[in-house]
C-alpha cells in the first residue's frame, strides 16, 4: 500500500507541491479523439492557491480527474504529473488509493456524488477512514462531528439523508469529506455551482478558511470566486492561455479571451465573446482562439503561440 513515500508536513516554501508538464488527456470516441487537456504545464507551490477558470468544455474538470486518475477507460494520458516530486501519473490503482483523500483531497462538482441512501454520518465517516482501518468507532464519530462543525453544520445533519438537506448543506458535507483526512493539496471542482448568492458567499469564506494551511487548485467558471486565490490560470481548448496573479488577471487582462471573459461579467458591462468554444475533436490550427479573436492575423492562423513566462505569462502573438 505505502509505495508513494511522501512527507505530509506542510512546509511553506517555493518548492512545488504539484508539477504538471506537457499533460495531455485524450478520450477515444467513435466520433473522433476528444483532446480535453492538450499540452498543460503549470507548477503549484506548497501553500499556494491557484484558480483555473474557463468556459464549459475547456477541459478544466478533466484536469482534476487526470490528477487523481479517475478517468474512464477510453482516456489516454501522456505527459508528467509530479506530486511532491514523485511521479503519480499511470500509477496502479493501489498506489492511487494511498494518495486519494489522504494527500490529495477532492471536492467533486456534482451534489449527486453523495450516496442518496446513506445518512450523512456514514458518508463522512467513510471519508475519514475509507479502508476499514484500525481507528476506534468512537474516535471516528467524534472526528466526524468535529468535521461537520468545522464546516458550519450542526450535529443533527449527521442523521439526515442528502435529500433532507439543502444544496448549501450538501455542498458543505462534500467539502468536509474532501478535507476529512487532512490532505496537503485540495482540488475543488466548481464548488459553488448551483448555489445562490448567500450560500456562494459562505462557501467561498469556508474554502478560504480551510485552505489557510494547504494548497488549493480551484476549478471554477465564476470569476468572482476565483478571486479567493492568489494565482489565476485561464484555460482555453485544453491549454493555459494566460496566467498570473489574480489582481493582474482581473484588472489588467492581456489575452483577448481573458479580456472577453472578464467583460462578460455583469459588473463589467456584460458584453459577450462572439462565437462558440471550439470542438475538442477539431481544434483550430495556430492559436486556438483565432476564429473568435478580434485581433487575429494570418500569423495567428498558422503558428501556435507559446506561453511566455513561468509565473505569469500569456499565449498570444499580439501581446507577447
Amino acid at each position, binding site marked *: 500500500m505505502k509505495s508513494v513515500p511522501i512527507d505530509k508536513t506542510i512546509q511553506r516554501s517555493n518548492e512545488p507541491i504539484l508539477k504538471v508538464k506537457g499533460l495531455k488527456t485524450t478520450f477515444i470516441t467513435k466520433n473522433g479523439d476528444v483532446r480535453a487537456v492538450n499540452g498543460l504545464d503549470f507548477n503549484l507551490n506548497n501553500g499556494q492557491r491557484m484558480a483555473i477558470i474557463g468556459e464549459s468544455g475547456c477541459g478544466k474538470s478533466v484536469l482534476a480527474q487526470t490528477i487523481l486518475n479517475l478517468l474512464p477507460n477510453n482516456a489516454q494520458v501522456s505527459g508528467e504529473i509530479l506530486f511532491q516530486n514523485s511521479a503519480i501519473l499511470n500509477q496502479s490503482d493501489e498506489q492511487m488509493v494511498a494518495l486519494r483523500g489522504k494527500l490529495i483531497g477532492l471536492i467533486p462538482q456534482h451534489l449527486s456524488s453523495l450516496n442518496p441512501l446513506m445518512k450523512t454520518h456514514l458518508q463522512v465517516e467513510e471519508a475519514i477512514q475509507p479502508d476499514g482501518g484500525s481507528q476506534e468507532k468512537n474516535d471516528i464519530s467524534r472526528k466526524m462531528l468535529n468535521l461537520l462543525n468545522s464546516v458550519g453544520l450542526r450535529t443533527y445533519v449527521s442523521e439526515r439523508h442528502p435529500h433532507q438537506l*439543502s444544496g*448549501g448543506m450538501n455542498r458543505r458535507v462534500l467539502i468536509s469529506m474532501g478535507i476529512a483526512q487532512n490532505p496537503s493539496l485540495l482540488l475543488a471542482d466548481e464548488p459553488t455551482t448551483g448555489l*445562490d*448568492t*448567500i450560500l456562494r458567499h459562505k462557501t467561498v469564506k469556508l474554502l478560504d478558511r480551510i485552505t489557510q494551511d494547504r494548497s488549493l487548485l480551484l476549478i471554477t467558471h465564476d470569476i468572482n470566486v476565483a478571486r479567493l486565490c492568489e494565482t489565476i490560470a485561464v484555460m482555453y481548448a485544453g491549454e493555459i492561455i494566460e496566467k498570473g496573479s489574480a489582481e493582474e488577471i482581473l484588472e489588467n487582462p492581456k489575452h483577448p479571451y481573458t479580456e472577453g471573459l472578464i467583460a462578460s461579467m*455583469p459588473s463589467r458591462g*456584460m458584453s*459577450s465573446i462572439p462565437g*462558440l468554444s471550439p470542438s475538442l475533436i477539431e481544434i483550430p490550427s495556430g492559436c486556438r482562439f483565432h476564429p473568435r479573436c478580434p485581433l487575429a492575423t494570418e500569423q495567428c492562423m498558422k503558428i501556435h503561440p507559446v506561453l511566455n513566462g513561468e509565473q505569469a505569462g500569456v499565449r498570444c502573438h499580439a501581446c507577447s
Partner: protein
Amino acid sequence: MGSKQEFVAMLVVENLSKIYTSGFFRPQDFHAVKDVSFSVHKDEIFGLVGESGSGKTTIGKMLVRLIDPTSGKITIDKKDITNMRGKELREYWTNLQMVFQDPRSSLNPRIKVGESLIEGLKLSGNIDSIDEVTQDLLKSVNIREEILNRYPHEVSGGEIQRIVIARALSLNPKLLVADEPTSNLDMSVQAQVLRLIKDLQRKHSIPCILISHDIEVVKWMCDRIAVMLNGRIVEEGITNDVIHNPQHPYTQDLIKATFLSDIPTVDGEPGEGHSLHNGCSYAGKCIFVKPECLENEIQLRGDHHKVACILAH
C-alpha cells in the same frame, strides 16, 4: 393599485398566496408565498430576487397558471386569469410563457429541436405561415438553421436556451416569465442570452418577470425589482434605488454577499427559527432586531420604494 401610478399596469398581482399542505394524517401547512402584490407595466422587466426557497419560482409558476394560487388575484391586460379553467385556460395559455432554468429538460429529448420550436405554432393553428415565422424567429435569436435538425443533447446550452426563448415568443405572449434563465450557463454565454431577452422584450413590448438570485444580473436587466424572503416581498422599487440605497437589512446583506464582502449576520440557514414567532422573517438573523420585530408581521409600506421593515419608517 396600478391606476395610482403613472403607468398602465399590464400585469397586476394582488395578495397572492400559496400554501402547500403535506402529510396525510396530520397535514402541515407550508406558506410558500404569502400575500404578495405587485404590478408590471408592459415595457418593463421586473426582477424577483431572493435565495433558494424564498418562493420566487412558485410565484412564476402561478403567474403562468402552472400551479393554482391558494388565494389572491392575477390580472393580465384587465382580464382576471386567476380562476380560468378547462378550455378557456388552454386557449389563454399561449399568452403565458415561461423559460425555465434548465433548457435541456424543457425540450423533449426524443424529438428534434426544430420540431419542438414549431410545436406551439402548429397547435395554435397558424400552419400556413410556419416557415416564414420560423425564419424570423431564428434570425431574432441568432441561431443557424442546421441546428433545427439536431436533438437537444447535440446542441450547446446557450443555443438551446435561445431556442427555448424563441419558442416562448413564437406565439406573441402577453407575459414572459424567465426563471433563472442563465444559471446553468457560462458567464460569456449568459451575457448573450440576457441581452437577447432584453432586446426581445423591448421589441415585443411585453411585461417580463425575471427570476434570479444574482443581484448583478438583475441590476443589469431589470427596471424594477422585488426582494423576496420566505415567501414575502421585503423590498420593492426601481432597481437603482434598491441596489444603491437598500433599506431592508436583508437586502443589504444580500448585496454584500454578491460582492463577497463580510456579512455581520447570525449564523444559520435562512428563515431558521422563523416558525417560533409571528414577526419578521429576518428577525432571527438581523443585527438590528428589536422586540417589536418578533410580534407582528411587518407590512410592505412606501410609495415607489416599498420596504417591510420597522427601521425604514
